[in-house]
């Protein structure tokens, strides 16, 4: 960290508590100690007045950004926040931020080189969080596949009198022969069983 006269005051606004924690950790590790995290924007005007942040980091998709921006515009304070890199001299940074889903507001007059590391850190943490969320989603769908396969196996055992191992082997063989995933075979088997099930009142 370069020497700074006064440490930057940073406000993180994120409805997603997990992501907020990920960003907070990243900034803290980078030596920024003056951090405030808020999860919802109720009473945000008072909070901003109290904290007087130099930089505000917010999720690009937060539906309250129009409200926040109008608040900044109406602010009578000298240090009013404006959208990041308003001089547009750093188009690549702006693009990286928007791609990552980060928006930042920086008080007017603050030197860009002091702000850029903060925004860069937020961008990398947003990206890391998105990657994590994607991996979680994949793990969840893996769990889903396992459930599907269990159900399909149960159907085969009931309709064809197969053992558990034979039922699974049949599913696997079918999948290999058709070059498809076992979970896909399981899913279509479950659907077919549902469609072909005899009417309940016969």
């Amino acid at each position: 960290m370069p020497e700074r006269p006064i440490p930057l005051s940073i406000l993180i606004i994120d409805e997603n508590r997990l992501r907020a924690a990920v960003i907070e950790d990243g900034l803290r590790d980078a030596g920024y100690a003056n951090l405030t995290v808020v999860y919802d924007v109720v009473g945000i005007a008072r909070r901003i007045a109290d904290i007087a942040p130099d930089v505000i980091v917010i999720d690009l998709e937060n539906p309250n950004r129009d409200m926040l921006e109008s608040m900044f515009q109406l602010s009578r304070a000298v240090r009013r926040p404006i959208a990041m890199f308003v001089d547009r001299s750093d188009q690549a940074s702006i693009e990286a931020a928007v791609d990552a889903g980060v928006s930042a507001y920086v008080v007017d007059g603050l030197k860009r080189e002091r702000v850029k590391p903060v925004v860069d850190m937020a961008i990398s943490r947003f990206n890391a969080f998105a990657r994590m969320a994607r991996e979680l989603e994949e793990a969840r769908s893996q769990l889903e596949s396992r459930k599907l396969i269990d159900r399909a196996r149960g159907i085969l055992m009931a309709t064809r009198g197969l053992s558990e191992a034979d039922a699974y082997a049949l599913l696997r063989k079918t999948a290999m022969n058709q070059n498809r995933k076992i979970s896909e075979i399981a899913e279509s088997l479950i659907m077919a069983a549902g469609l072909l099930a005899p009417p309940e009142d016969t």
Partner: protein
Amino acid sequence: MSAHREHEVVAGFMPLLDSAILVAAREKGIAAAEGIDLTLVRESSWASIRDRMAVGHFQVTHQLAPMPIAANLGLTSLAVKTIVPIALGLGGNAVTVSNDLWARMVDGGAQTDLDARAAGRALRAAIAVRAKCSSEPLKFAVVHPFSGHNYELRYWLAASGIDPDLDVEIVILPPPLMADALVGGTIDGYCVGEPWSTAAATAGVGHIATVKAAIWRSSPEKVLGVAATWAEREPDALAALLRALCRAAQWCGDAANHRELADLLAGPEYIARPAEWMLHGLTGALAIGGSATQRIEDFFVPFAKAATFPWKSHALWFYSQMVRWQQIVHSPDNAAIARETYRPDLYRSALKPLGVALPSANAKVEGALAAPTPVGSAGASLVLGPDGFFDGMLFDPDKLEAYIASQAR
């Protein structure tokens, strides 16, 4: 239409009834028929729409009509030069108040006919009564500082003898949160596009007091904001897109299609709310609160009355209101920037092959037509109006300075 080169266009939109023209252009295959591969991306704030157009994620965007003007005037950060080659319909907004405020307005003579003059008088009376026992002003929400909602609410209040800055407080809120804020008592009323007034009225938590069409009939609301650099680089794609949007507007304006359109808009990737909500705004038969329904002529006009034409007089009226409410200081240069943001020339050249009515003029005196009136046009005959402001005032774009002076405080 295999002769066309396929143009890829990505448009950002907000979940509002007046995204209808964009949605129909895509879902009814109208854009595809013009050789446009149109992708629609739902956004959660106007700020996000602006930012994503600035970095090239979107070439075109559903925007509040004053937003591109504010961008070109340098009033919003991170905005790129934006042009308006087509509008996305007229009207579509309502002013909704809490049940409590409505009850007090009824005491002050408010009627259920949504008449703007009577509702304004009643609100003024309710504010006077309130002032005796509370120093806290009534709070109204709009969606954005540079919005038709903000300006028409302020126009209505001011013409009703209510100072929008002193007698009430106006705050910014995202539309889907407004009905909840009304219930929670955070706000007393709001001006917003559909279906977000229907949301409060049908849930029994609010009452529609008046509508945009009653404050200024046939008035501008949303436009297509186009990144100027893209428009210059891809004139053929832009022209094809404008033709598609014009055809889509025509489809949206046909009452026979309202049911299908309501179902499309209700879809999870668009507004994701009940189709019945959409029908109120599309048909103009508004559920206004309680169990009352009120039919409003020209509540939302997607196609008729040259509803997609980007009138320079609309741009200049919005500019006059930016000056009126101290968002910018008037100068001839600023007025020129506002005027040049709207591009009727691009509209005409793109739509000529369609044979639709193309107004001969670029601007008109707003509020001058008391009845439907045939006007000069090419392609097909055109009837405009009625288009009056509820207080009977006129806006002549050739007398911009006089209009601004007449509204100065």
